[in-house]
């Protein structure tokens, strides 16, 4: 599907175009974002996947004018964000990781004033707010003070608010963190609907593998400020080898075993977490029995997983993505 939208993108500017972007918060600090390149086409749902501290939120901050990059080019819908942040903001909608709604206002007022900031008339802002609240199933919550909302309702309100001014690119920072499974599914549905209905590009960060897999047309896997791979979830899974992820649960931590496993032919990354060892096995037939034999009587439990974004992530980073 994303290939189709890329074709459209040739005629129109990319929704997001980052080149050689670097962010260092202090002169002696390591690069939080370390020379990344990213292009997102119109109508694409794009995921930044990585553990906490990988540089995802900083990347979103840079694209949305709130973090000043140390170096690099940042273009959103054809506008240079560093040179013209106020112009770029007109085309950007942002849902931040935490509830940053205006606590002094009601739900409806948050949307209404957002519309007024973007130059809407009183009448249009009220009408658009009512439409959005209804479409997110919170039409009856307009007069509720924001402080009284549950986490799921607050997130929906944030999303509705970010959409008030018809942004061309929507940035969602960890949109489903802290939500219950139902709210998460509902938010995924909303994002898909938005792309279909409004044709906007959606850039989201997540540390949930299944979110990236279920929702995103393309995923960039980030670690330590760098993009390790950027492709469709299908390609990432395929290219990380036709391997499997073997998870060994031992009776006790056994660092020596990890070393032995690393020595086996056909074993890729080995990730140790106390008494749990995750072994990325790449392709060689019959290697799993070897692994089991090495573990011997220490082995308490064994799980073998088919290729997934998670196995790909471990193959790429050498560690598991455990939030």
């Amino acid at each position, binding site marked *: 599907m994303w290939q189709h939208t890329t074709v459209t993108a040739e005629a129109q500017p990319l929704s997001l175009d980052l080149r050689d972007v670097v962010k260092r918060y202090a002169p002696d600090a390591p690069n939080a974002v370390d020379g990344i390149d990213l292009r997102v086409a119109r109508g694409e749902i794009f995921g930044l996947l990585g553990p906490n501290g990988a540089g995802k939120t900083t990347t979103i901050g840079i694209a949305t004018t709130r973090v000043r990059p140390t170096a690099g080019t940042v273009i959103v819908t054809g506008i240079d964000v560093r040179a013209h942040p106020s112009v770029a903001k007109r085309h950007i909608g942002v849902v931040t990781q935490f509830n*940053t*709604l205006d606590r002094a206002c009601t739900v409806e007022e948050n949307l209404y004033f957002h519309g007024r900031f*973007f130059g809407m008339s009183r009448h249009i802002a009220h009408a658009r707010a009512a439409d959005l609240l209804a479409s997110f199933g919170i039409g009856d919550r307009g007069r509720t003070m924001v402080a009284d909302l549950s986490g799921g309702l607050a997130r929906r309100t944030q999303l509705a608010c970010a959409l008030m001014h018809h942004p061309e690119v929507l940035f969602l920072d960890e949109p489903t963190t802290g939500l219950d499974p139902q709210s998460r599914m509902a938010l995924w549905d909303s994002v898909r609907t938005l792309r279909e209905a409004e044709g906007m590009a959606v850039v989201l960060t997540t540390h949930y593998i299944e979110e990236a897999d279920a929702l995103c047309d393309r995923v960039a896997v980030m670690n330590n400020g760098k993009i390790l791979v950027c492709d469709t979830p299908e390609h990432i899974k395929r290219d990380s080898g036709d391997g499997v992820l073997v998870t060994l649960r031992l009776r006790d931590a056994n660092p020596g075993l990890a070393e032995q496993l690393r020595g086996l032919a056909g074993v890729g990354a080995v990730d140790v977490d106390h008494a749990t060892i995750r072994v990325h096995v790449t392709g060689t037939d019959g290697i799993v029995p070897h692994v089991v034999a090495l573990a011997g009587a220490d082995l308490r439990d064994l799980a073998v997983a088919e290729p997934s974004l998670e196995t790909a992530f471990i193959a790429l980073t050498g560690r598991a993505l455990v939030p």
Partner: protein
Amino acid sequence: MTTLSIGRGPGRAGIYARAFWGLMLRDARVLAREFIPFLLRTIMNPLLFTFVFTYVFPKIGAGITPGGATGVSFATVIAPGLVAVAIFFQGIAAVALPLATELGGTREIEDRVMAPLPVGMVALEKVVWSSFQSIIAAAAVLPMVLLVSAEPVSVSVASWPMLIATVLLAALVAGYLGLVIGTVVKPKQIGLIFSLVVVPVTFLGCTYYPWAQLGSIRWLQIFTLINPLVYVSEGLRTALTPAIPHMPVGAVIVALVIQVAGFGALGTWLFMRRVID
């Protein structure tokens, strides 16, 4: 049509102006919801001060007679001073109190920072709005002093230009000072800062005595010159109670203009640093 014009060059000023207006509307809505507490907060301190010192004291034979050969009542001396305090602390509170919260734990300033105007204008809007609140506070306090005092209060507008200039500059100084405090101080410490700043600045701000009369305590007279409130009190004395000795008009205006520029530059710079990494 709800779609926006996305033209870049022309119309940009208009887009900024509409965003700025939107921010003002938001603040107006919040103030409207809190208007009674706002008025009570503004009036309570000067009301009690006026009541005790210009009503109770004279009635119980403990009235204060100002020094010097001016022959005016104590109420006349403090009337401009109380208006100055109202402008000043309403202005500081109107910016600093909400801002410390909005920039602190909740980061609820985020949506306004993402409004389509330069971030410095978000700070400017807060100061403009607080100036408006300062002016309401001044307008509420002055008639109250006249009403409550048991002594004659000889207040009349001797110079409208001086009154308007002092009130506007004082409101801006207060707003920008609030911006500095609100960006630097953590929400938890804001109460402490208020007692550490408000109390000394009020008592040493020439609110209850004219600056000229401090001549007999020379070191204090010089020391108070670092207090921004002194120039507000003295400016209002010039405009409202010219019979009382006051600072030269030029000195008041120059000092206030320098403070607006200084606190303005500092506060805006601090605000930008807090909202953009």
